[in-house]
Each structure stands twice: as C-alpha cells, then as structure tokens.
C-alpha cells in the first residue's frame, strides 16, 4: 500500500507541475492541431481520402504528442537535480515509472478525446452506423481504443524518455528508439478506429483492440521489471 502511495504522489507531482507550467498541454495541443492541419493539406481536396485518412492523422498526431509529453515530463525532473535527489530516497523504482506513466497516460488520453472530434470535423469523418450497432456503443469503443492506444504509446515513451534523459542527443534519440517499437500500436489503433468510424464494425475493431491490449499488458510487465536498470547507477 505504501508503494501505491508513492505511485500516486509521483503522478500527483507530475500533474501539479503540468497544471502550473502547462508546458505539455501547450506543446502537445498546438503541435497535434498543426499536424492535423498539415496532413489535411497533404491529402488535398479529396473528400474520400480525407475521410479515410482522418484516423491515421489522429494517431500520427497522438504518437508525436506522446514523445513530446514524455520528454517534457522528464525534463522537469532533471532540473536542479530533483530526480537525482528523489532516487536517493527509498522509493521503489517501479513506483517512479508507474507514477509518471499514469500522469502521461492521463494527459494523452485527454488529448485524444479532444482531438477525436477535431479530426472528425476537419476531415469530414463521422461515426458511421450500419443500422445494427448503437452509435453510443461505437463511440464508447472508440474512446476505449484511444485509451488503449495512448497507454501503449505512454508505456514506451515514458520508459525510453527516462532512459535517454541522461544521455547526449536525447531529443533526437527518443523517437529513433520509440517508433520502431510502437509501430504495432499505430497500425492497430488506426485500423480499429477506422473500422469504428467508417462502418461501426465492432467485430473488426475488437480484433485489433485485442492486439492493443496484448501489447499494453506485455509491455506493462516488461517496462516495470526493467525500469530499475534504466535509472539505477
């Protein structure tokens, strides 16, 4: 219970910092909005292409936002040696990771919920109904997909941002390390979202969601076990 306590304190610290500096919020919201806009230009005026590309654009924006968010959250820890001091305390290293993961995941999920209607509006994509599934259910599964997908991004981004935090060239290194690992998340999330937005195909979306959840579970274990080697001397 004490360890859970530590997790919540770390998450609380990160969220409190964010509430005051707005560094992550400002950077990620504007960055993802710009990404959505730029990709819309890239698709040209083709409404069909726009509709089909809506979810792809959404997830690309979320993936980049995840990198920025994770890197920024460790940046605050590095200032004035605050993390160095914290790691000298008897805090389980997994608790540090979990706390930062919770904060990052929360921010990214919130961002995803904001971007979803924005992407839908910009790209002219609407929740498709096939007459059988209720739109409310489709939306619920879509939000679940966003939560599962951003969790996958956050798991890897927070882990690798912590790893690169003490290395030279960390800004460029983080995406190089992270993106090859999260390709499955990107593919599965885009396909699941497209299935839901396009045709409300719950079966198809569920098949991809299983991959997402499997990824999340495996990496939750892997990252929790390995994190102590990332921050340990």
């Amino acid at each position, binding site marked *: 219970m004490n360890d859970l306590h530590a997790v919540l304190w*770390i998450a609380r610290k990160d969220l409190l910092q964010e509430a005051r500096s707005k560094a992550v919020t400002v950077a990620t919201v504007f960055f993802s909005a710009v990404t959505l806009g730029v990709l819309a230009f890239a698709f040209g005026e083709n409404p069909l292409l726009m509709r089909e590309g809506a979810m792809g654009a959404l997830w690309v924006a979320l993936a980049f936002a995840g990198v920025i968010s994770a890197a920024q959250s460790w940046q605050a820890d590095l200032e*004035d040696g605050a993390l160095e001091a914290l790691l*000298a305390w*008897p805090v389980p290293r997994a608790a540090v990771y979990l706390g930062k993961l919770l904060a990052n995941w929360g921010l990214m999920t919130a961002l995803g919920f904001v971007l979803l209607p924005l992407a839908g509006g910009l790209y002219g994509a609407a929740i498709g109904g096939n007459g059988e599934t209720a739109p409310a259910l489709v939306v619920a599964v879509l939000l679940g997909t966003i939560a599962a997908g951003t969790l996958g991004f956050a798991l890897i981004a927070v882990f690798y941002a912590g790893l690169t935090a003490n290395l030279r060239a960390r800004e460029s290194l983080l995406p190089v390390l992270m993106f090859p690992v999260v390709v499955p998340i990107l593919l599965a999330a885009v396909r699941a979202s497209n299935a839901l937005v396009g045709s409300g195909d719950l079966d198809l979306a569920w098949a991809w969601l299983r991959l997402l959840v499997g990824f999340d579970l495996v990496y939750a274990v892997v990252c929790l076990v390995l994190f102590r080697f990332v921050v340990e*001397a």
Partner: protein
Amino acid sequence: MTAAPAGAGAPVGAGAPVGSGAAVPAGAPAAIELRGLVHGYGGPPVLAGIDLDVAVGRVVALHGPNGAGKTTLLRLLATRLRPVRGHARVLGHDVVRQAHEVRTRVATLPVYGGAYGALSGRENLRLGVALRGGDDDPGAVDRALERVGLIAAADHLVRAYSSGMRKRLALARLTLADAPVWLLDEPYAALDEQGQELVDALIAAARDDGRTVLVASHDLPRSLATADAVVEIAGGHLRVLARPTRAPTATATATAGTGAGADA
C-alpha cells in the same frame, strides 16, 4: 519502508552516547565502511582504492581540491553510483546489493537544491516525507520550515527561490528524513553567515542524536570546529588531516554548548 533508524548498528536514539570509539561494541558494523573502493572509467580513476571506517555517531569532514572525488564518494554512498571495484557499506548494508536498505538509512544534502521548481517549498517537503514512507504530518513540515527560516516563503514556488533559499529547503528536507546517516555535499555553499551557523547547529544536533555525518566542504576552520576528524581526498587516496575537537577516545567537551545533550 520505515525512515526510522532501524536494524543494524548501535542504538541511535536521541541522547545516545556518541563520540566515543569505545562505546561502539566490537563487531557492530561501522556507519560507513569502504574497502578498496575504485570509481572512474575512461581515464585515471577518481577513487583509486579507498579504505575507510567511520564509526557510528562520528562527524567527519571530507576535504580535497575540486574534482578530487568528494561528490563521487557521497553519491556512491547514496547508492547513485556503483563502485567499479571494492565495496561500500552503510551500517552493514552493501550499497549495490542492498541499495533499498541503504536508502532508508541515508539522507543527502545535494550541492544544488534537488527540489522541484514548479512545486512550492512546502509541497517539496511533503513529497519528500511521503516518498520516504513517513506520515503526512503538516506540523512537522511547518517546524522544519520554521527552523530553516523559510516559513514565510513556504508556499512560493521553488523556482522563485534564491540559491541560498534552495539550500535551506534542502536542509529542512534533511532534518525531516530522520535518517541515521547524513551525507552533506558542500552544505555551506551559497549560504549567508546565518545560514552557515544553522548548518553548524544542525550538525551539532545530529551529533547529539547519534547520527553519523559525512560533510564534503572547503571550509577548513568550520570543519576543525565541528568535525571529529578531517580527512583529505587527493589523487584518488584518502588521508587524515586532523582529529580536531574530539579524539577517538575522548568524549565531547570542546563545544559543550551545542553538545550539552550528549554530556548531560
């Protein structure tokens, strides 16, 4: 995860007799034990085989030129670096294999404040207490802030603190940790005269409480006044510069004013 000075070693409660080598029973682990400690890579080692025993309850000043390895030694003891060769133990616990046990027994004062700029002084202290597993006691936090003279600035963000105020905040966190071993890295740096006296008073109080204190410093006169021994680290090796106020077998007398608790 108790922050109390638990487990191995001599009793370290308030008012326990300290300052006497004979008072520590034979076989009890030293507060700090270094054997053949080597650290550094890609060049000459910073620490080239250090052998040191610090008895429980002793205040030891660590001197040496910049880059001699004082901070490296303190970080090794705080489990934030691992020895290349040799070993380091704190109250009998190995800093590599029993890092968690060591962390529960050690409190550090980093050169730089080591606090989060986006949190207030009070929030930083509460975070520190919570993560050390202590009870969330606002009264204790307030008393610590009061003692270091930060109570008026307690709710300001640390970002707006001067470097001296950050140091004071770190001192408050140190006292809240209630750890049997203190590692202080240049505690006097950035502090005004009043602040430096506060450090001396805290060290004296720590001695009364039976804590072991290792102080990296450049202020030889202060070290001679506060420490039981002054050691110098240079060229990767360690030697004793002075055993000023308290010889290993003598009890505290020189600074009876601050050590009254121990003498009573």
